[in-house]
């Protein structure tokens, strides 16, 4: 994201002008913009006009509108951010208070004004505008008859392609049917890889599967690449990593990201850190359950006793909550940080964040055991 202008007053109110550059940036914008903010952007609106003869005529007018946000929607696949709200700037075409939905797209600047820029929002802004975090990893998850191509950005995971075929079991002389089906499956997967993987951008391509599927596919891919002279694959052979996964489903991504071969490649990415933090939490929960807490109430109690060492929280909590609740979570994050604790804000678009989201969205590893949490109601 490009930051064009930043006017934030000492009382934390102010505005910024931003240009999202890729879909990841729209995701950041989605997290930044909350109910009650003002967003100004160039938009197109259909305006009814009366002609001189008294007839009506609709016309699409390009104009700049500012709305007070009521709802924000993010479409990951189409990379569009929709912001619905009431118009706050008088305009010759649009009345004050009329509803309008702004569509933010890549490369379209917008101005975001907040009454209060809290620490979480400022951190997010800083993170979003940091170009060094941009690096993508592509993971191909496979199992017999199912393959999924996932693009792992710093904060979002997008499923680019999903291929499903039923592969018959081996049977006597009809074994050819099995090989044929498998080859077709590989061919489709290879086509998906060629279509979606831009080796110029991605750091590495991870092929993960249970059993020997990954090796089989790798062999097939290399054979076809030489046969058909597919340059990108031949040249980027070193970027392909084979990893074991227990299944081809999306949640196996967390195993993939935790495997040593991958960790060295993506150590610095947010996704890897999140996976590690969540794993630590689970380990703590199994080894010393009294030192792990989850659920808003338990975490709050733990915080009151200054017990939180690492706080895990999803961005969904900041986004969905009303202003008062958001403020509560922000102050929790601030105060944990102030007390020397560590805070991980998980992206709900990653597998680990998704999982934390299922787990009430908030969890904590504690400095010392609090066995009485167990008996407390959620």
């Amino acid at each position, binding site marked *: 994201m490009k930051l064009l202008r930043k006017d934030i007053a000492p009382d934390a109110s102010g505005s910024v002008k931003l240009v999202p550059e890729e879909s990841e940036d729209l995701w950041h914008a989605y997290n930044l913009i909350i109910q009650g903010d003002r967003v100004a952007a160039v938009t197109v609106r259909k305006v009814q006009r009366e002609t001189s003869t008294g007839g009506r005529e609709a016309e699409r007018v390009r104009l700049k509108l500012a709305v007070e946000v009521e709802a924000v929607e993010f479409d990951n696949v189409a990379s569009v951010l929709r912001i619905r709200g009431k118009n706050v700037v008088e305009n010759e075409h649009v009345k004050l208070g009329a509803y309008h939905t702004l569509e933010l797209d890549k490369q379209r600047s917008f101005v975001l004004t907040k009454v209060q820029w809290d620490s979480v929002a400022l951190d997010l802004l800083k993170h979003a505008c940091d170009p060094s975090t941009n690096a993508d990893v592509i993971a191909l998850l496979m199992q017999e008859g199912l393959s999924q191509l996932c693009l792992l950005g710093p904060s979002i995971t997008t499923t680019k392609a999903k291929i499903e075929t*039923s592969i018959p*079991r*081996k049977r006597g002389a009809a074994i050819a049917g099995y*090989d044929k089906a498998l080859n077709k499956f590989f061919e489709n997967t290879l086509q998906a890889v060629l279509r979606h993987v831009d080796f110029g951008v991605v750091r590495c391509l991870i092929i993960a599967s249970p059993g020997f599927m990954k090796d089989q596919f790798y062999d097939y891919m290399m054979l076809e690449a030489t046969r058909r002279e597919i340059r990108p694959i031949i040249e980027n052979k070193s970027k392909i990593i084979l990893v074991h996964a*227990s299944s081809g489903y999306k949640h196996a991504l967390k195993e993939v990201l935790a495997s040593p071969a991958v960790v060295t490649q993506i150590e610095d990415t947010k996704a890897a850190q999140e996976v590690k933090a969540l794993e630590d939490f689970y380990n703590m929960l199994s080894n010393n359950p009294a030192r792990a807490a989850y659920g808003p109430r338990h975490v709050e109690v733990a915080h009151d006793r200054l017990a939180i060492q690492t706080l895990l929280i999803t961005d969904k909590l900041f986004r969905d909550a009303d202003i008062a609740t958001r403020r509560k979570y922000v102050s929790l994050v601030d105060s944990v940080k102030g007390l020397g604790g560590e805070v991980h804000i998980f992206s709900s678009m990653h597998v680990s964040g998704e999982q934390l989201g299922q787990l009430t969205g908030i969890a904590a590893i504690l400095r010392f055991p609090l066995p009485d949490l*167990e008996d407390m109601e959620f």
Partner: protein
Amino acid sequence: MPRKGRHKLYDEDDYDYYDDYKDDDEFDYAEHGQSRKEDDATSSAPQQNFLGGASKAGETALGEANLWRCSICTYDNPEDYLACDICGVIRHPSTRVDQLSTAVPFKFDGPSPDDKVLAGKQRNARSVPVEVSSPSILSKTSLSTMETKGGVNTSHSSKLKATLESKAPARSRKLGYDKEKKIESCHVIKPSQYEGESYLDDGMKHMSLDNNLQDNGIINHKIEQSSNKGLPLDNYKPEQWMLEDNENEKKLFHLVIVGHVDAGKSTLMGRILHLLGRISQKEMHKHRKEANEMGKGSFAYAWALDEGSEERARGVTMTVAMKHFETKKFKVVLLDAPGHKDFIPNMISGAAQADAAVLVVDASTGAFEAGFEGQGQVGGQTREHAQLVKSLGVNQLVVAVNKMDAVNYSKSRFNQIKGSLAPFLKQCGFKDTAILWVPVSGIEAQNLVTGPSETQLTSWYTGINLLDAIDTLEPPVRLTSKPLRLIVAEVFSKITLGPTAVSGKLESGAVKVGTKVLLMPSREIARVKSLEQDGESVSVGRAGDHLDVGLQGVDAGALMVGGVLCHPDYPVPIATLLELKVLTLGITVPLLRGTQVVLHAHHAKDPARIAELVSLLDLKTGAVIRQSPRCLTANQRAVIQVVPERGVCVEEYTNFRSLGRIILRDGGKTVAVGVISRIISQQ
């Protein structure tokens, strides 16, 4: 072409009344069936009056007592016209069923060609459950016969229903469909079943249903755009052809071979097949030659089962191989499961079909320990497989202690293995009496189909050989009296079966060539074109058989592994929220709300997440220890709720055991096994 003012009969209120009868919960219904019945009896009386009044008003306004709709031009003719006023088509003579016309003036509504098109369209657009007019229902009362025709004028059918509800509470559930759906269903008869028949014929068939029910059998279908649930399973009455079974014939027996990787499962079975003459000398010679060429001479027998090039190259079974052989007592369907931990999902689908299991353990020094204890915290596959087969409903086990040649057929080693494995198997839930211990050697063919010849073994072993041990197993109980359920284990195409063929075990009911089956979860109707068993064409398949079914009238995309072929009247539910009673295994990471797992049920697998930890149960008594626990750790019993991502075709365990078992896996390990105690919501 409705007459003017006639639509008044479709009074809003009428439908609202029936909406109240929309009963989503089958379970609930069964429980309250009795009280509902009484309620209906009392409440239907005023309702009838009301309806009677309403229709009377409508009719008097029309000045017509009764109308019948022409099946060709849909013009509404007066009751006393024998032929249509407009097009002259003769009204069906037997419409005046005596009992009915006295009680309720009956009107026959045939579907117009437009409706026919519409019906087809809707069938494609949305999933449509199909109802079969099975004899049990039709023969109940003639009222219900009329009802199932679906061509009854709405106002009259309302009256019928009012009466029906009091008479047949079980059926009334069916009537409570949505208002709009009902309007559609009143005029919609599924076209495909009536292809090639004129509507008049169609009517004839229905009118004479009472006497030729058996002939029409379940081929006589009718669509109803009503509830998704179908009929309660208890309603099902099998037909004669489904039951008859030749007692003298050898029973089919599904046997799964499990065990740790490299325990010699495939070699052992390859050897047995060879000794029984199921593999010709020529084939065996070929395998031996090829194996030697690849420097894997010892794999020659395993190659009889491991046919995939990848499997042969790596020397590991990957998918479940299926072979047939015969013993003195059984026709055995042999399922050779892979032992490698990455292929446990395949092993589960194999074991889900099995009636009994052979657990192969490697007797050679260190190998048994590796399979049993495993490395580090992770147990070996001997352990995991034993737990899995038990949780999949296999109660009888033959433990084949293999590779006895490697330990010089030592009695002490055999006893040592028995000593350490027996307590564990007991802990898994196998009864001591249900386990047979047989020392064998696959590679030296000792004690497989004939008694041992090796003196080192004969000196102390006096028991039976492996094949006889299989013969001592109890034959499985077949669910012939339940409606058709065939779990799709494989989708393939074959010249003799056509491009859309499935294979799987018939869990219950029966199927014959020509029957219509409902394909779940795609909800498509298909016709059985041909049936094969072990490569030979058969005409009828009954519960317990392993069948290859050639289907007609479906798209290959609608077939999927883990799907179920069912009786169109009794579709299997597609569960989207399940309550499970589970036992957690030796897990290191606790299970929490939101934990993502892979849910395995028979051949289906679906990513799922745990939605709720409902309660923790006592290991022995099953009593609730605490509600909504924070997490589940190893070896605990609990009730949990699970949400599969796409929905799976399963049944509640109490209704249908083989479809009610569940295994939850995560990260390549089995985290919990259990049964479905309740299907909370379904598609």
